[in-house]
């Protein structure tokens, strides 16, 4: 038995595997710490709802990256546990982070992880230092150092007095390694935070207040925190050319009130997809922190017409606590709950696809009306000026008839009242022109009359025109061009 108690079952390389393996994209590490800050603020709000929530502050200043919050802070016990790997008493239903691994994510980038925390209402502060560099040096010498020893020897916990009214957690990823220097690309990190952090929509976005209000009403304990990066406020991205937002609630079952997810979306007011793609599409969020990006919803929900996924931007907030994000938050853990989520959320894409279809039809109807109007008005002008060759009379009638039929067909399908009114006005105008051409045919230019063709030439000319009409019957624009060229050529000879 004594021999068995000396056995060690976990060794140092686990640390390397956990840190490097779990976080191939080093920016995910920053998100881990923001997630912890968010939990601290969320706890503070629950325990002391009257306390104002101050922003999470993120700063990248070589050689370090700092993440600080004025949340509930961590008492001594939690700070002691902070050094433990894979230990967490956080409740997955209440907190964004809960595995107890994320805090060690900094291993992949920094020489030291220094964490200060002062818990709410306790006049002390605690500091945990994880000497990552020394751990790695030790591992390079001996790959099989017991994990327990590494964590004990290269972590420290200290304390000092603090003012009673102070409460915060402040993390420094000290001396970020060269292979992680990408983290100092300020623009890139700012964009990343804007897309993933649990923050509010940009206040300049016309619909931001309405959407935030709806999220607060629809999602229990919804929290959008303020966040600054190098002193600048960071907000979720938005597209100014958006239509009014729409909302969808996804239930577990249609006849039961339990909500599985809540979605808001805005459709592109312009044609087609939103650009850039990185900000478009719907993004899953758990505790208001992004899981994957627009590509994840496109892949999981838009089985048909996937290109239409990017006609929208918005969010799907997951309310089912059993749907758990993977450690790198690029997807969810493969569970039954996830299968159910994807299955039920397909309804969102069905609705949006139909909206995109309607929008497409409306846009096409608009185009048809505009083009039809141009054509009909153009013909009316030509008739008025007497420049339309009489040889084209049948073609013009056919052209107007076709436009009328197209507009009538779209008019029957549209639900857009404004478009309906415009279409009806257009049809009145078109009918008038059609019947006037048909009845008296006045206004056309008759080349034969103008040149006083004799019977023989008239027969010849009619034959040529008839042959041309037969030849180009499937290509009316070409026929028109040819007839106009004949007119121009004869006029050019000076006969007129």
């Amino acid at each position, binding site marked *: 038995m004594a021999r068995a108690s000396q056995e060690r079952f976990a060794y140092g390389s686990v640390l390397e595997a956990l840190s490097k393996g779990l976080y191939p994209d080093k920016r995910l590490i920053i998100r881990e710490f923001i997630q912890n800050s968010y939990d601290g603020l969320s706890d503070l709000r629950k325990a002391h709802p009257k306390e104002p929530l101050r922003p999470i*502050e993120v*700063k990248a*200043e*070589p*050689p*370090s990256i*700092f993440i*600080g919050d004025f949340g509930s802070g961590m008492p001594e016990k939690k700070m002691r546990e902070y050094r433990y790997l894979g230990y967490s008493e956080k409740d997955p239903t209440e907190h964004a982070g809960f595995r107890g691994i994320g805090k060690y994510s900094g291993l992949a980038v920094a020489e*030291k992880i*220094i964490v*200060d925390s002062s818990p709410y209402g306790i006049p002390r*502060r605690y*500091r945990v230092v994880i000497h990552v560099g020394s751990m790695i040096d030790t591992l390079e010498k001996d790959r099989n150092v017991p994990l327990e020893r590494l964590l004990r020897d290269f972590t420290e916990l*200290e*304390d*000092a007095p603090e003012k009673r009214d*102070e409460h*915060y957690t*402040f993390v*420094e990823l*000290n*001396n970020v390694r060269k292979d992680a220097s990408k983290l100092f690309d300020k623009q890139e990190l700012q964009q990343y935070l804007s897309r993933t952090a649990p923050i509010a929509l940009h206040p300049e976005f016309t619909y931001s207040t309405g959407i935030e209000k709806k999220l607060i009403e629809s999602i229990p304990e919804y929290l959008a925190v303020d966040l*600054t990066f*190098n*002193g600048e406020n960071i907000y979720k991205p938005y597209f100014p050319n958006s239509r009014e937002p729409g909302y969808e609630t996804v239930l577990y079952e249609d006849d039961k009130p339990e909500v599985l997810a809540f979605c808001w979306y805005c459709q592109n007011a312009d044609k087609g997809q939103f650009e850039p793609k990185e900000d478009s599409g719907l993004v899953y969020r758990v505790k208001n922190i992004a899981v994957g990006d627009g590509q994840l919803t496109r892949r999981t929900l838009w089985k048909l017409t996937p290109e239409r996924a990017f006609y929208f931007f918005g969010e799907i907030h997951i309310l089912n606590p059993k749907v758990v994000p993977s450690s790198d938050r690029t997807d969810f853990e493969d569970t039954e709950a996830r299968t159910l989520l994807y299955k039920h959320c397909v309804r969102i894409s069905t609705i949006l696809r139909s909206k995109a279809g309607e929008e497409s039809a409306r846009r096409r109807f608009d185009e048809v009306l505009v083009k039809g109007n141009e054509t009909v008005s153009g013909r009316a002008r030509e008739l008025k000026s007497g420049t339309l060759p009489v040889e084209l009379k049948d073609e013009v009638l056919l052209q107007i008839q076709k436009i009328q039929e197209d507009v009538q067909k779209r008019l029957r399908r549209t639900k857009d009242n404004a478009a309906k009114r415009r279409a009806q006005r257009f049809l009145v105008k078109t009918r008038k022109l059609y019947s006037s051409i048909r009845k008296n045919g006045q206004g056309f230019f008759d080349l034969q009359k103008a040149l006083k063709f004799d019977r023989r030439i008239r027969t010849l000319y009619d034959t040529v025109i008839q042959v041309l009409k037969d030849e180009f019957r499937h290509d009316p624009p070409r026929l028109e061009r040819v007839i106009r060229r004949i007119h121009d050529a004869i006029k050019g000879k000076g006969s007129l």
Partner: protein
Amino acid sequence: MINRPQRFTKNKETVRALQRETIETSLASKLGNLRYFGLPSSILGDIREWRDLFAEFVAVERGEKGREWDLQHELTLQAFRLGLFTKLTLLRGDIDSIITKGKDLFGNRIKFPFDVVSLDYSGGFFYRDKRGRLERLQSVETLISKQSRKRVDFVFLISSNLDQVDQGEVRRTIDNIRTDLTRYGEEAEKLIGAYLKHPMDEARLKIYVPYFVNQLAAKYHYNCETDRVIFYKGNKRTRMMAFRFYLTFDARTEALRSPRERLSQILNKSLIELVDGRPNDTLLELPKLSPPEQKPKNAQERAN
């Protein structure tokens, strides 16, 4: 225990209040929008006291050898607690080297100019580097020269202890001052003698540092106004001195001008001695120099 920074004495608090007066008087039109460069210590002593005057702080912290990260981290934590984190830029390394090279150990550059430069040295003013050079004095010159390129007026604050006063350097400089005072004749001889013989280094530094700064200022087109020099006992009864200057840029001529502040003004200014935070005027029993207009102009007048 967390490496807790020292508590500041009442004397240090008064020094900060007097330095604040200098800033407020000299830079009245820019208050609230000033840029700071200096050594605030990890507890952010002066920044904490003056934060309402500044829009930006560039702080230098070297840290303790082998545990540099500790005090540097403490400084950023204090800035965060005080809500100054976004206004703060931390430069890591030795201040003299940072001024000379224009960047810190991690390549972060200093962006000149500053409105207030506060060099609150933890050691003395006469620190010598490995090659025996008075590196600190050279970095002060570099600093003034870099400020002058931006043609800005600034308040320059220096505090240091008297642990390693370079007696040779100080005495040689005071000898030079004697030459500058030849027109005062015997009176100057007596006066310089009194400074050299005085038992306290404070007396000699009272003229050495302002003289040094005045000479450098003139070299880079600055006029220098010296506020009264402060001396006091700091932590662990360390003897400390604090100097306050206001440098105004003047480039009306390409040719350099002699320092506008007269030596007699510097010499005749009393010092402020702080005891338990209370200021007392003193001349340390040093003689004054008569103003030039009271001096006899020639032998005849002297005879009369």
